[in-house]
């Protein structure tokens, strides 16, 4: 709970002004990541003690180009700044300005000043300004703005003490207003102020223009045309005057590196090569880079489990811990290496300025599917695992696109499907080749392709079918290239990992214990926990009964009761299919070849032929390609969308889709 006495300080500025660097500097690792009410957008706050008896709650608002709402970002910022309730009100604003690109930054800051909130302007990129021969007369600018102007360096921490001090001392600017609506606009504004009894003209202006955009706003008179446009023109005129008076730059040294790099990085041909190279690197990194730490975690937990069973006699509690709690913990810890790697990578892309270029290059390709270039990252990381991939959608600003990406990412072939695919392909696809192509390899490749096609097609369909809200125009600034700051990368990785463990982790653990219960207890027989082996034969357990109960439903797909049981228990994670099959066919070791041999011997009682025909195999393969059988994905979706409803609907829709596709395939092949 935020301390009531804490001074609420908001960071406001354009994107790419070093806002998160300053935020990390001001708060350290004491950050809290949450959501803004009603929108799926991340809200980061941090508490820090700034002076004896002064607690500062710093709020990192999204980067915006203007306080007027063009998208959810601006809406969030405007709502925060317009809050009047004492416990929600913003007490101070730190305005961020990139010293090498002051013009557009001062534009937003002059809007903030007009709200009458005590504010300080922090000018970042001080080192770069010096390198490029830029000079800002801070004292004169401060005099004109009526607020402190502090040069800061987020890399070294220079200027931060002065900034804190200035924030504590800040008062509303006496130089207001910086924008004067004229004629019709003024008359409209006066009306809004009177109707809503708002004393501050610019508050009424912002609020009124926002309300009038709502489709059924009857309480408010429509504002005259070009209100925002006139404001922009007037403000820019003023900002240009300030810059002429107080700013000097050496044009020769300006922006050379970014322009030079961009000649290659966003080149229509080379740019695409570089992008695909990086995405390949990401794929490789997630697949192989996380292997060793994941194996380590797996081994440690297995050792812990063995040690546990050695210290005490088998019993209810022992079984609960070793088969319910520990696998749940494993299910949380196992994802940490991939999540950390992916967010480290994304953070590097964002920090360096390359992410905006990814969006730029991929925009044309992703547009037909309702996605922007940003969704390339979750799509590619989804081939390793849907968990980090779905978490990576947090970096998307557009909530509609984020919704689409979360909805379809589980369709991408993740690494947990591989053991299932390997087992079944080995079972039903002949190991022969045609024109030098091995059938098994072709089928595996086709399944991968199917994952991508299904995800993109699904997104296109959802995009068509979703009620079309006015989508914000695609306008994107390409930030200059910068060296990433290690501090920011580490903070990002830490925050993401922490929120996964503490939030999605809880859900995963709970589901794991529930599934343990369903697998260990049954309706008719009491479980026996005194033995080394499973307390109940799997067919006696609730899961076994559920599998048998749904057998008639699954029959059109060609699934017998054993496959049905394996499908049900696969909700823990898809690869559990292999283990369950091993148990059901009484194979002791989980070696693929042994299970396969045993399964190949299974005879269909109706035909007397082998049960696992091509039709059955393909049917199961397709079912696993589409169904969302993964409790961790379910948990992460629920967490990221802040909605169990979304997760449940997604689970049901993908399940039905899987059922339909498997049915058709089985009917065609048998």
């Amino acid at each position: 709970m935020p301390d009531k006495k804490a001074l609420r300080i908001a960071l406001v500025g354009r994107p790419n002004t070093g806002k998160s660097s300053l935020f990390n500097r001001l708060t350290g690792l004491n950050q809290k990541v949450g959501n803004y009410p009603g929108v799926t957008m991340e809200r980061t706050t941090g508490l820090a003690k700034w002076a004896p008896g002064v607690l500062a709650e710093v709020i990192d608002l999204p980067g915006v180009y203007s306080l007027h709402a063009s998208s959810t970002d601006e809406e969030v910022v405007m709502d925060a700044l317009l809050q009047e309730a004492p416990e929600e009100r913003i007490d101070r604003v730190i305005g961020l300005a990139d010293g090498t690109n002051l013009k557009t930054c001062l534009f937003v800051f002059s809007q903030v000043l007009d709200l009458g909130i005590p504010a300080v302007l922090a000018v970042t990129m001080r080192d770069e300004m010096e390198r490029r021969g830029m000079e800002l007369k801070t004292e004169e600018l401060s005099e004109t703005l009526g607020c402190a102007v502090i040069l800061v360096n987020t890399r070294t921490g220079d200027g931060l003490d002065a900034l804190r001090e200035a924030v504590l001392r800040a008062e509303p600017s006496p130089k207001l207003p910086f924008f004067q609506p004229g004629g019709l606009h003024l008359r409209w504004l006066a009306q809004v102020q009177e109707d809503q009894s708002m004393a501050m003209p610019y508050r009424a202006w912002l609020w009124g223009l926002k309300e009038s955009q709502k489709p059924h706003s009857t309480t408010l008179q429509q504002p005259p045309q070009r209100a925002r446009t006139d404001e922009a023109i007037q403000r820019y005129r003023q900002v240009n005057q300030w810059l002429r008076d107080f700013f000097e730059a050496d044009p020769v040294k300006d922006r050379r590196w970014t322009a030079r790099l961009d000649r290659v990085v966003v080149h229509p041909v080379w740019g695409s090569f570089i992008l695909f190279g990086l995405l390949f690197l990401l794929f490789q990194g997630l697949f192989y880079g996380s292997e060793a730490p994941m194996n380590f975690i797996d081994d440690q937990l297995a050792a812990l489990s063995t040690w546990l069973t050695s210290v005490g006699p088998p019993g209810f509690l022992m079984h609960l811990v070793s088969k319910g709690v520990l696998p749940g913990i494993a299910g949380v810890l196992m994802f940490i290496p991939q999540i950390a790697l992916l967010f480290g990578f994304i953070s590097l892309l964002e920090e360096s300025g390359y992410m905006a270029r990814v969006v730029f290059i991929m925009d044309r390709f992703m547009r037909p599917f309702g996605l922007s270039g940003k969704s390339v990252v979750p799509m590619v990381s989804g081939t390793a695992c849907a968990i980090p991939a779905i978490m990576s959608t947090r970096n998307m600003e557009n909530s509609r696109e984020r919704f689409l990406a979360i909805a379809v990412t589980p369709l991408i072939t993740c690494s947990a499907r591989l053991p299932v695919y390997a087992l079944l392909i080995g079972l039903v696809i002949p190991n022969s080749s045609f024109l030098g192509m091995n059938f098994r390899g072709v089928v595996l490749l086709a399944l991968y392709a199917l994952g991508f096609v299904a995800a993109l097609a699904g997104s296109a369909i959802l995009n068509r079918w979703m009620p079309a809200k006015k989508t914000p125009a695609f306008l994107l600034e390409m930030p200059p290239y910068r060296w990433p700051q290690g501090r920011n990368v580490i903070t990002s990785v830490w925050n993401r990992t922490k929120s996964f463990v503490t939030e999605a982790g809880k859900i995963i653990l709970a589901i794991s214990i529930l599934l343990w219960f369903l697998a260990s207890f049954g309706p008719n027989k009491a479980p026996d926990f005194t033995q080394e082996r499973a307390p109940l034969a799997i067919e006696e357990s609730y899961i076994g009964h559920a599998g048998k109960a749904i057998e008639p439903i699954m029959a059109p797909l060609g699934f017998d009761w054993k496959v049905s049981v394996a499908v049900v228990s696969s909700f823990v994670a898809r690869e559990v299919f292999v283990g369950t099959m091993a148990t059901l066919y009484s194979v002791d070791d989980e070696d693929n070849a042994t299970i396969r041999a045993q399964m190949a011997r299974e005879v269909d009682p109706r035909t007397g032929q082998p049960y696992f025909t091509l039709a059955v195999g393909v049917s199961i393969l397709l079912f696993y390609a589409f169904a969302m059988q993964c409790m961790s994905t379910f948990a992460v979706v629920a967490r990221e969308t802040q909605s169990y409803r979304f997760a449940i609907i997604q689970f049901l829709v993908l399940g039905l889709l899987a059922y339909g596709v498997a049915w058709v395939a089985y009917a065609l092949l048998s």
Partner: protein
Amino acid sequence: MFLSDLPFGHTAIVLQTPDSLPVKLFEMGCMPGEEIELAFYAPFQDPMCFKVQGTLISMRRDLAQIIPITEPDAR
């Protein structure tokens, strides 16, 4: 002449724009009277990125096609 026709190595001035354009464009710094230059474009020349007021702003081609500009000057 429209922004989408601006060739590399030339600059032009943004003319009075129709009211239907997103205001965000103005607020980002791309407004009438400002000098504008093509910086680079993505495959298929869409989206395109322009340099205006010291900022690189990228937009889709359909938007650049309705922003009027003066006759380009070679730099």
